[in-house]
């Protein structure tokens, strides 16, 4: 005959009290865990020193600077044009956008930002938006891989590869494009490029939709991201976050709308914002931004005006080579441009550009001549990461990966 036993089922409060009783004897020490600088989820070389109480973080100290190359010092020692290739290496996942941002900053200093040719402005918008799509494709793919969905990365990278191909036929380089020049771009679009670009736009939306089916309602992904890393609206503003990380917290601030540059005021697009401010919202914002970018590219391709891509001022843009070899004045311009650089007036400007990662700003202090006296690069990743000591405590250690991925930072730009 079976023996019967009574089971004692405690309610939640009683269970907690019992657990406390049991644990109170264990005098626990806090543990220090060093994460990075070489860790797959740090997307480069970010090091975080975590202080743990069990699995809960009690203190987080990010250490940056492992990729510091002294870009600001370098900029003081070369002409404005010579610095363009260095901007590729800031946010190396969106070099075209950095090129556009830097060229616009120098043009603002020179006072020629309103004289850019219409064709140049449209091409630059396409570049910036292609860079946004490319950066977000990688950002979302890596994020999914960090939280355990390997397929998404391979899936989005197939599409990102096409952006590399487009960049290659446009600028000659897949990664380090150095495409813009002060007063224009290095060369016009090659024949047939617009059709390739349109084809890519049609294909990438399919890919984005498929990515959504892999992630947006994926139970594992949602569980790992929803309610994790919640940044309140007030905190996001106080820590000066920008880009999708700010908009994920519900702040509708996009430099393309707030301070329209190039031809963004003539284009029709929307700025997605989140409601909760958690990692999941930041992911959703990126997904929608890609669709809006595709929309912008389509409009630019439809409206693409003809004409030259560079302004005609020989003191700023290199004159055509055939004329340099035959005409005296062009030869002088070419010589001055190459040896001394563009002659900037004394003064100071700040220009902020809506980069895929946030506001990439250049503060240029000029004392006249072809080199800046001081150039400060306000990089979005650096500023965005400064919230980590405030945000991480209280989370589980596995959430660190989910939060870092949702920030989509890049250390080349953070450390400069």
């Amino acid at each position, binding site marked *: 005959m079976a023996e019967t036993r009574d089971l004692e089922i405690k309610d939640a409060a009683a269970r907690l009290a019992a657990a406390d009783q049991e644990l109170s004897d264990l005098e626990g020490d806090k543990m220090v865990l060093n994460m990075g600088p070489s860790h797959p989820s740090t997307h480069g070389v970010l090091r975080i020193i975590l202080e743990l109480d069990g699995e809960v973080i009690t203190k987080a100290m990010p250490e940056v600077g492992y990729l510091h190359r002294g870009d600001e010092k370098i900029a003081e020692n070369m002409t404005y044009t010579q610095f363009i290739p260095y901007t590729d290496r800031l946010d190396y996942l969106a070099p075209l956008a950095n090129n556009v941002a830097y060229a616009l900053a120098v043009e603002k200093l020179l006072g020629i930002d309103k004289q850019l040719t219409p064709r140049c402005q449209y091409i630059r918008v396409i570049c910036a938006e292609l860079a946004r799509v490319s950066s977000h494709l990688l950002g979302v793919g890596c994020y999914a891989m960090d939280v355990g969905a390997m397929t998404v990365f391979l899936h989005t990278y197939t599409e990102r590869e096409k952006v590399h191909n487009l960049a290659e036929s446009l600028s000659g380089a897949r990664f380090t494009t150095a495409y813009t020049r002060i007063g224009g771009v290095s060369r016009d679009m090659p024949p047939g490029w617009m059709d390739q670009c349109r084809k890519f736009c049609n294909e990438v939306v399919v890919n984005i939709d498929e990515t959504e089916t892999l992630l947006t309602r994926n139970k594992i992904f949602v569980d790992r991201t929803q309610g994790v890393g919640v940044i309140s609206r007030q905190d996001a503003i106080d820590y000066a976050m920008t880009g999708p990380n700010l908009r994920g917290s519900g702040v509708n*601030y996009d430099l393309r709308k707030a301070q329209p540059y190039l031809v963004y005021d003539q284009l029709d697009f929307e700025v997605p914002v989140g409601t909760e401010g958690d990692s999941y919202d930041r992911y959703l914002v990126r997904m929608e931004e890609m669709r809006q970018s595709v929309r912008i590219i389509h409009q630019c391709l439809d409206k693409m005006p003809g004409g030259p891509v560079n302004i005609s001022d020989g003191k700023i843009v290199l004159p055509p080579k055939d004329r340099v070899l035959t005409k005296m004045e062009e030869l002088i311009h070419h010589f001055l441009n190459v040896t001394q650089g563009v002659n900037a007036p004394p003064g*100071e400007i700040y220009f902020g550009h809506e980069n895929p990662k946030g506001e990439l700003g250049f503060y240029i202090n000029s004392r006249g001549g072809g080199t800046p*006296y001081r150039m400060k690069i306000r990089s979005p990743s650096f500023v965005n990461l400064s919230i980590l000591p405030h945000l991480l405590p209280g989370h589980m250690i596995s959430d660190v990966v989910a939060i870092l991925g949702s920030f989509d930072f890049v250390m080349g730009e953070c450390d400069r």
Partner: protein
Amino acid sequence: MTANPPTPGGTTAAQLAQKLRDKFGDLFSAPAEFRGELTLQLADADRVAEICTFAKHDLGFDFLVDITSIDNYGEDPRWTLVYHLYGLAHNQYLRIKTGVTEEKSELPTIVPVWRSANWHEREIYDMMGIRFRGHPDLRRVLMWEGYPFYPLRKDFPLAGKPTNLPEIAFSNAAPMDGGPFVTVPGTCDAGSREPRSRLPEPDEPKGGANG
């Protein structure tokens, strides 16, 4: 950062600058405008925290875009601090500049006003050696702890300086004589030392081993 048209019923950057001058009197110079941007020069750097508090709470500058520093080497005061303020509600920018002498090299922190100032001030301390009084955690941020120099100063050479910490990072200049990537004048060039594609050897037998 071009001067934006004010939102309906909003204020312009010039009006906001005027309010700052009304409040703090002759601490500020007349606003200078260049490329549509307004710059105010603050005479006393020690009052920067007070001014920023006023700008944030009374003028709506809730967003600190950036802080940076300039080394006016050979001039007095040697340091210039540059603050870029922005207000999300009124969509206006303002730049505040202030000078700090080399002997002093110190000014109050503004971390209590905007928390984003934390890393910006650490970076300025790291790169220029200007200290911020009252900063909660004034450590180097980009260079490593214990690095003895301030690399963005104008008297710091571009090639760098040797330090006595070789195990942390080497700071020798890259060798410019010899090595695989340096062409010595009068010898063969890099392309022929490491050709991209080799031409077939002239005496190579054609058509396989038996040819």
